[in-house]
């Protein structure tokens, strides 16, 4: 990620709704080609932040530049260089996938030959060939979502915004979509900004993650470093029979072992450093006449990190009546 230009620069961006501060003076920058995640519970302000960057919402104060253009004064310029996949479905269910893509391409002023070429490209890229003539209402939720990602990517954006891209998808479709998102980033070099409240999503996809809570950014770093700040990794071992002495006492003397606890026949070691400690531990055991019969390595999860920074686990959204109504209407296809 070194020596690349900042594609997004946010300075003290703030949004208030009737006195409620949804986004509270956030500042950060994102480099070209990065996959950057906003991780936080529902209502933390992730979506509001992204909506301001996409020029849908006007900030109360502060400023931001996307692709070098000001999000308030140069809206159209910003809009031309970004692609967006919204949290709620925003695709015409009465039209086919191809028609939706075609609609989008025309709205972005792509000429006929570019349109046809790009549509073919994104259909291939997201494996949607053969489904483009189906009405969106007849596609599965995962396929609908893939069409939306394809559409967001159609106008060759420099930055692609994905707002909770896998919300409501089953595990299989979620995994699939993750791989497509990775592919877009790796193959086409597009910068991706995503919001999520799924830890594993942020961990799997993002180069850097901003943990956001109550409108504030509480930490920004790579998932690995964020996890390390929480504390040490954990190694569990079982010592085989025929070992001499008290293994726990030996192990305590290693400089990078911070704590040793015995639990259910396993020895649990809090260690500084990562997996490279495993061979060191085995060498140490060999030289002290210990036989290790089983060994496990644990990393703290991003969930632990989140807990560390915010004092709580990510809250699940309660289904309000309006949400239920909306999801019901969505299922029935929004007839008018």
């Amino acid at each position, binding site marked *: 990620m070194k020596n690349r230009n900042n594609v997004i620069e946010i300075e003290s961006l703030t949004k208030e709704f009737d006195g409620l501060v949804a986004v509270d003076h956030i500042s950060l920058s994102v480099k070209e080609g990065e996959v950057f995640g906003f991780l936080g519970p529902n209502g933390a302000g992730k979506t509001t932040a992204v909506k301001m960057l996409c020029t849908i919402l006007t900030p109360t104060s502060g400023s931001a530049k996307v692709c070098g253009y000001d999000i308030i004064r140069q809206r159209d310029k910003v809009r031309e260089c970004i692609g967006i996949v919204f949290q709620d479905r925003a*695709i015409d*269910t009465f039209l086919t996938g191809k028609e939706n893509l075609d609609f989008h391409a025309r*709205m972005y*002023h792509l000429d006929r030959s570019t349109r046809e070429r790009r549509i073919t490209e994104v259909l291939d890229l997201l494996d949607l060939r053969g489904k483009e003539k189906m009405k969106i209402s007849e596609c599965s939720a995962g396929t609908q979502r893939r069409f939306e990602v394809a559409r967001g990517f159609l106008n060759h954006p420099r930055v692609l915004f994905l707002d909770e891209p896998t919300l409501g998808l089953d595990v299989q479709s979620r995994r699939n979509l993750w791989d497509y998102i990775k592919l877009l980033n790796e193959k086409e070099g597009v910068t991706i900004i995503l919001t999520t409240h799924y830890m594993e999503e942020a961990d799997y996809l993002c180069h850097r993650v901003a943990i956001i809570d109550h409108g504030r950014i509480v930490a920004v770093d790579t998932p690995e470093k964020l996890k390390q700040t929480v504390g040490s990794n954990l190694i569990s071992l079982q010592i085989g029979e025929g070992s001499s002495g008290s293994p726990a006492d030996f192990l305590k003397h290693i400089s990078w072992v911070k704590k040793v606890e015995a639990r259910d026949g396993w020895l649990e070691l809090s260690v500084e450093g990562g997996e490279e400690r495993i061979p060191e531990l085995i060498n140490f055991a060999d030289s002290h006449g210990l036989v290790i019969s089983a060994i496990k390595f644990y990393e703290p999860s991003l969930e632990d990190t989140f807990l560390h920074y915010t004092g709580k686990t990510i809250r699940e959204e309660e289904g309000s009546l309006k949400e239920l109504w909306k999801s019901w*209407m969505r299922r029935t296809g929004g007839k008018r």
Partner: protein
Amino acid sequence: MRALEMQRIIDPLPIYTMWLRELKRFWRVKARVVGSILMPLLFLVFLGLPMSFASRIPSLEGVGYLDFLAPGIVAMTLLFGGTMSGASVIWDKEFGFLKEVLVAPVSRFSVILGRSLGGITIATIQALVIIGIAVAMGVELSGPSGLFLALLIMILTCAIFTGFGLIIAAKLGNMEGFVAIMNLIVFPIFFLSGAFFPVQSMPAWLRYIMHINPLTYGVDGLRATLIGAHVAAFPLWLDFTVLVILCLALATSGAYFFSKMEAD
């Protein structure tokens, strides 16, 4: 520079795209296509025909009731089609599609112009189908020049109510109470437009109400152009003037309200 800005405000490709989407959406739901023709047809068959057997209109010597009613039913199609086309922005908003449209690098004026032109095209085609059905039922048209003028009146009338629908949509903001409010506003406009009975034979108080109803001038203009000036209550130039002024006022404010609408 100036020309460039104009091209931004009136952006041909997105306008065409929005127009095309409206047509495709309409055509794809066959129930809507059938339904849009069925209701006017019911009025013509079950109201127009029996009434034409029952009586003549006293103040209009020699005009059959079906001839009198048909332009009113055509206007009804435009009223319902136009209002729904404008108000259905609420649907787009509720189902998120409005966001997709509003974040495109396209002026809101072009978006709403294309969308409304789509609605007007659909309603006008429906109206022409109704005219065809009326002719098949024995209604005599005045001639081709009358039909051409009628086409202008149809477009104006539909544009007026599209703007009106947009204002309702923007004011309402969501779908709650939508159907109730639509019926509460649209049906009185229809019933008090002179579609069923002649304005000139009503008592003064009712006449005043009818005179401030925009649809009255649409119905009257259609009557004058489709059937003949002798059936109309006002001179044709008056119908045209009122419709053009209302069209400018309502379409402009509709577009204005749309431009102020929040995407979600």
